[in-house]
Structures are given as structure tokens and as C-alpha cells.
């Protein structure tokens, strides 16, 4: 497959796997895990295994696995979605066109599955303050889905001490409520949850090692698999053992790279955004000589193993970059810039998402003051290639830095 043949979102994966990274068994395995994540989880569910749709917060994944349930990240449906999903959201559910394209896509996909007898019908919502998702869950409940949505937890700037402890206490209570919903009232299996937390920390450290190796070999894993490595760290694509194996092989491969990369050819960038589905943007970055080496969602923290496992989940949430206030993300991005010696920031948001796009102005101003240029990109969950202008902006930005 040549890049000219790439038409659909899945084609980008196949192109990246076969043409760009044909030399890496590990990247191939990683991309395969991602490609087959949702269909395999749905198949497993149809065959009698337990599975739930889950969000992207991360903390819930060890809890879900500790109950023997497969978490299926609903935003991963984006790359399978076609025009139909979006039009269902806009025409059938009358979502305004400017509503978040991710939410529209996901709702459309759930709609398409609603009459399938053996499709996953339980949704664990934890979108913090994402109002379009909150609305979407209300709508999709009417279609026969069972939805559990957590209350919002927000850690404002400077929240420490007693107030912070109150937040932890609040969130611990939320986690027990999730456990009730997940299992129909079964208590938390503390030992199994500890195992899952230890596993998460182990794999997290391995992924960090890969990120460190990428500083030395920035072009070994290009943008698309680099982003999906971090996505996979969240859910393991439903197959923890296989994901960890892919990570191990990748470390092995990267530790044995003999060629030295001429560092003056590298344009190190920090990706401040989510995944989006406009994979052509990643290709544009690669072709222009950019290397996504730093990330907003970098796993900079470990789960604590010295406290009760439920409290460890809660503390992981309130202590990490997505705890609420955008200043936490800003601080982390600052560390990433320093770590990877970034020449620029790509501030990516999903079209129609005020949650991810407004804070970008604050970050842009902050980093411009420090002499770090940035570009705003609006990604969508649209089907097919990104708009020419989006690619132009991306490439022009990297040309500017080169």
C-alpha cells in the first residue's frame, strides 16, 4: 500500500504498520492490537465475556480489569466510523453541527449497535466536565443503554491540604459506587486491584523507557504509533499480556539500534492534545521532519502501592495533569518541553470541544512568552483525509521551525 492509496482511518494504520514501520515487529503488533481492539472486545462480549464501554480517564481501567471485565474505550470507535455515524447524530438526534465531532461520532456508533442483540450495552461515563458527553449519555439511555456517570471532580489551582483530602475522600466514594455498578454490588477485590495497579506501574515504566529511547532514536517510531502507544497504555487495547509483550519487544528493538540519528535533523515537538482521528496530520508531521517526542498525556506519575488500592486510584486522579485546572497541564507541558528540548508545541483540540480548545489560548500565550512557538489545530472525527488547510498549517509550522 502506498500513501496515495490511503483513504480511510484504518488505512493509515495499515500503511504505518506495513510501509513505514515494516522493520519493526513490535510496532506492527502494537498497531494490530489497536486495529482489532474494538472488534475483538465486541466479539469476546458476544461469546460471553464481560465488557463495558469506558472513557479515557485511566484510573477506572485497573478497577475494571480487577473485576474480570474488558474496558472498551468508546472514542476508539472513531476510526471505524463513517459518515453515517455523524449524520445519525446530526439528523436523527438533531445535534447541532458545531457539537463536538467525537461525541457525534460515538453516539452515531452506539445508535448503529443499539439493535444488535449481543452488543455491549453498558457505558461507564467519566468525562469530568464534558457537557456534550453528559448530554449524549442522557440521549443514549433512551436507546436502551445502561449508563453510569460519575459526578464531576475538579481540582482548582492551589487546592492542597484539607481541601485536597476532601477531594480524595469524595472520589474514593465515587470509585466504590462505580464498583457497585460494575459488579452488581460485589466488594472491591483488593488483592486483584493491587495486582492490576502493580501491572499498570510496571507497564507504565516500560513505556517511559520507550519514550526515553525515542529521544535518542526519534524516528524509529513515528507519530501515529507513538500516540497509540500512549493510548494503549491506558486500556492495553483489551489485551494486557499482548500489549506488555509488544512493549517489551519494542524496548528490545530500540536498545539494539546501531545507527545514530543526526540530532540536527530532528525537529522535536510536544503534542498537546488528544488523539483525534485525522491521522493525515501525523503523516504531515513525519514527512516534514517533525518528531512528536513530548506529550500532554505522558505518564509522569505512578500509582501509589503503599496505600489502599482504591485510595491509590483516587490520588492518581487528583495528582495528575488532568485533575481539573488547565494550569496542571501547562506545568507538565513545561517539563516536557525541557525534557525533549522542544522547538514547538502542537496544540490540538477536537472541533466543537470547548473543553479542549479554550485552554489552548492560555497555553499559547504562556509559552510564547517563553519563546516557544505553537500552532493550534482543530482535529475532527471525520471520515477520510484531513482538510488540506489542516495539513498546510501543520507542515508550514514545522517548516518554520526547521
Amino acid at each position: 500500500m502506498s500513501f496515495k492509496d490511503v483513504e480511510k482511518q484504518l488505512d493509515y494504520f495499515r500503511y504505518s504498520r506495513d510501509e513505514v514501520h515494516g522493520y519493526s515487529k513490535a510496532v506492527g503488533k502494537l498497531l494490530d492490537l489497536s486495529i482489532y481492539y474494538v472488534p475483538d472486545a465486541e466479539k469476546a462480549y458476544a461469546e460471553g465475556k464481560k465488557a463495558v464501554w469506558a472513557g479515557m480517564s485511566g484510573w477506572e481501567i485497573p478497577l475494571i480489569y480487577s473485576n474480570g471485565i474488558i474496558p472498551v474505550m468508546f472514542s476508539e470507535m472513531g476510526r471505524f466510523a463513517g459518515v453515517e455515524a455523524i449524520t445519525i447524530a446530526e439528523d436523527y438526534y438533531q445535534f447541532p453541527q458545531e457539537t463536538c465531532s467525537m461525541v457525534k461520532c460515538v453516539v452515531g456508533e452506539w445508535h448503529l449497535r443499539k439493535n444488535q442483540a449481543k452488543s455491549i450495552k453498558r457505558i461507564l461515563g467519566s468525562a469530568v466536565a464534558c457537557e456534550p458527553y453528559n448530554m449524549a449519555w442522557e440521549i443514549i439511555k433512551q436507546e436502551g443503554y445502561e449508563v453510569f456517570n460519575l459526578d464531576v471532580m475538579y481540582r482548582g489551582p492551589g487546592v492542597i491540604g484539607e481541601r485536597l483530602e476532601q477531594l480524595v475522600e469524595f472520589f474514593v466514594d465515587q470509585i466504590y459506587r462505580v464498583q457497585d455498578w460494575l459488579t452488581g454490588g460485589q466488594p472491591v477485590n483488593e488483592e486483584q486491584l493491587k495486582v492490576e495497579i502493580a501491572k499498570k506501574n510496571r507497564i507504565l515504566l516500560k513505556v517511559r523507557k520507550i519514550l526515553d529511547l525515542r529521544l535518542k532514536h526519534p524516528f524509529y517510531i513515528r507519530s501515529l504509533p507513538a500516540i497509540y502507544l500512549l493510548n494503549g497504555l491506558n486500556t492495553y487495547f483489551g489485551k494486557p499480556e499482548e500489549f506488555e509483550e509488544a512493549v517489551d519487544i519494542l524496548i528490545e528493538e530500540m536498545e539494539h539500534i546501531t545507527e545514530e540519528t543526526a540530532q540536527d535533523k530532528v525537529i522535536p515537538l510536544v503534542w498537546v492534545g488528544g488523539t483525534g482521528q485525522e491521522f493525515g496530520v501525523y503523516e504531515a508531521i513525519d514527512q516534514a521532519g517533525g518528531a512528536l517526542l513530548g506529550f500532554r498525556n505522558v505518564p509522569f506519575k505512578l500509582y501509589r502501592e503503599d496505600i489502599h488500592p482504591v485510595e491509590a486510584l483516587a490520588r492518581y486522579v487528583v495528582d495528575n495533569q488532568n485533575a481539573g485546572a488547565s494550569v496542571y497541564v501547562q506545568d507538565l507541558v513545561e517539563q516536557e518541553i525541557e525534557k525533549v528540548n522542544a522547538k514547538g508545541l502542537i496544540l490540538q483540540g477536537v472541533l466543537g470541544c470547548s473543553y479542549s480548545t479554550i485552554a489552548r489560548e492560555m497555553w499559547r500565550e504562556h509559552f510564547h512568552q517563553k519563546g516557544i512557538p505553537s500552532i493550534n489545530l482543530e482535529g475532527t472525527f471525520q471520515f477520510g483525509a484531513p482538510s488540506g488547510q489542516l495539513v498546510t498549517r501543520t507542515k508550514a509550522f514545522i517548516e518554520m521551525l526547521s
Partner: protein
Amino acid sequence: MKKFQEVIDDSLIGELSHDTVIGVDIGSRTGKAVLLDGDNIYTAIVPTGVYAQETADKLLGKLLKEAQLEKQQIQFMVGTGYGRVILDFGNIPLQIITEISCHAMGAHYLNANVQTIVDIGGQDSKAIRVDPRNGKVVEFIMNDKCAAGTGIFLEKVANLLDLSVEKFGQEALKAVNPSDISSQCVVFAESEVISLKARGEKREDIAAGIHVATIRRIKNLINRIGLQPDLIFSGGVSNNAGMKKALEDMVGYPVSPVKLDAIYAGALGGAILAQKALLSNAVPTGYKENKYVS
């Protein structure tokens, strides 16, 4: 055909080589190309057809014919513009560079003091800050969210006023009381123009109002990157006298004159970048196999 001395900023002529190169800028409405050969500059322009490659081939044919050159004499090409992605010229080494970088470089060689470029094309508009030391982009911003502020918008309204695109700008210059156009959306602005016509407002006033409304969007782009003189107006809309006046009035600063139609700025920049690529032995970036090369 023109000589370098007739077009290029005097202080930068010495930086150009005598290599034979072409810059091709395939915009959404017109394709432009510039050929540098010896100390000669050739230009060509054609409407963009359905297929970008066909448009590019036409441009190439016109340039080769005028310069009396064979295709194999072209040492390097740079493709730019929205149609750049699919260009292929067989054995001629080709590099694909965005129009933002090309416009900056082209404008720099037309006026070495340029620091700000307003580029309004058929489907988007851009404000670009340029480093006067080297013609590289310092910062840029694009309006690609809305057709208002683009050439296609002006074409649509010109049609509503029964004017050609060329006469639309001239008509605006006659205005005494430009109409107040409040809509910032093409669809609504069209409705507004129809309402203004129905109310009997003068054509020149409506035309001027549309120009002012369009430039209002551009002004926000300029404010974002900061206006630093000299200012150059490039892109297909730069030939519209009404837009130039509206731009100067709105930003309170004159557009610097250049010695080549600024519609060619992107193609000229592409040709200059092609010469630089030759000098630095750059690897062509037209479609290539992506293999792990550290």
C-alpha cells in the same frame, strides 16, 4: 520574460544562482509558475482545472515554450499551493513546500524589508510574519474556518452585483458611503447583499461594504501576529484595488509596491527555494518510500 534586476530586490540579487528551476503554485482558483534561468524570470498563469497535475503540466509547457528550454534542462522544482500534494514531474527532482513558506520567501526577494504579508487566496487567507534577514516564516495564522475573507467570497458577491471580479474592486473605489455589512458568514452576507440591493443602495457602496467586511476579518489575523512594516499583499486577491485600499485604510499602513504581480509571490518563493535546495543538496520530498533512516 524579465531580468532579475527588474524584479528582485537589489540587495538580494547576488544571492540567486543561475540554476534553472521552477516554482509551481497550484491555488484553488489559479495555477501560477515561475521559471528562473540564468538571470531571467519567466511567469505563467492558468485557471486551476479539475486535475492539479494537468494544470501544472500546462504551466510547465508554457514556461518551457517561452524560455525555449527542454524539460530535462530543469534542475529542480518546488511544488506549492493546495494542489501541491499530488504533483509529479517524472525525472525532475521535486520538493513539496507549503505556500506559507513560499509566499514568505517570494515576498522577501521582492522586498528585502518585508516583515508582514497578507495573502488572500481563493479558499483561505493568511497573515505571515517574515524574518527580514532570511525570508523565513516567523509566525503565521490562517483563516480557513470560513469562506468570508477569501477570494471565493468576493467572487460570489461580485456575481450578485453583476460585476466581474476585476471590476468589483474598482467599483468599490467609487463609493462615498460604504454599506454596513454586519454578517461574517458568506451565506448570510449574500442574503444581506440581496436585501441591500432591494433597498436601492448603490452598487459601489455595497461593493465597498463587502470589501470592508472582508478586511475586518483579515485585520484580526494581522493583529494576532502583529503588523511590522514593510507590508506586502499577495495572493490572487492582491490585484483587487478595492481590497488593497480597504486593507490600507483598516490597518493604517500602506502596502509596499513590488515589481512583480504579487499573485506570483508563492511561485517565485518556490523557485528560489528550489535554487536553495540545489545548493544544499536537499533530498527531493516528492513521494518516497518511508523507511527507517535514522
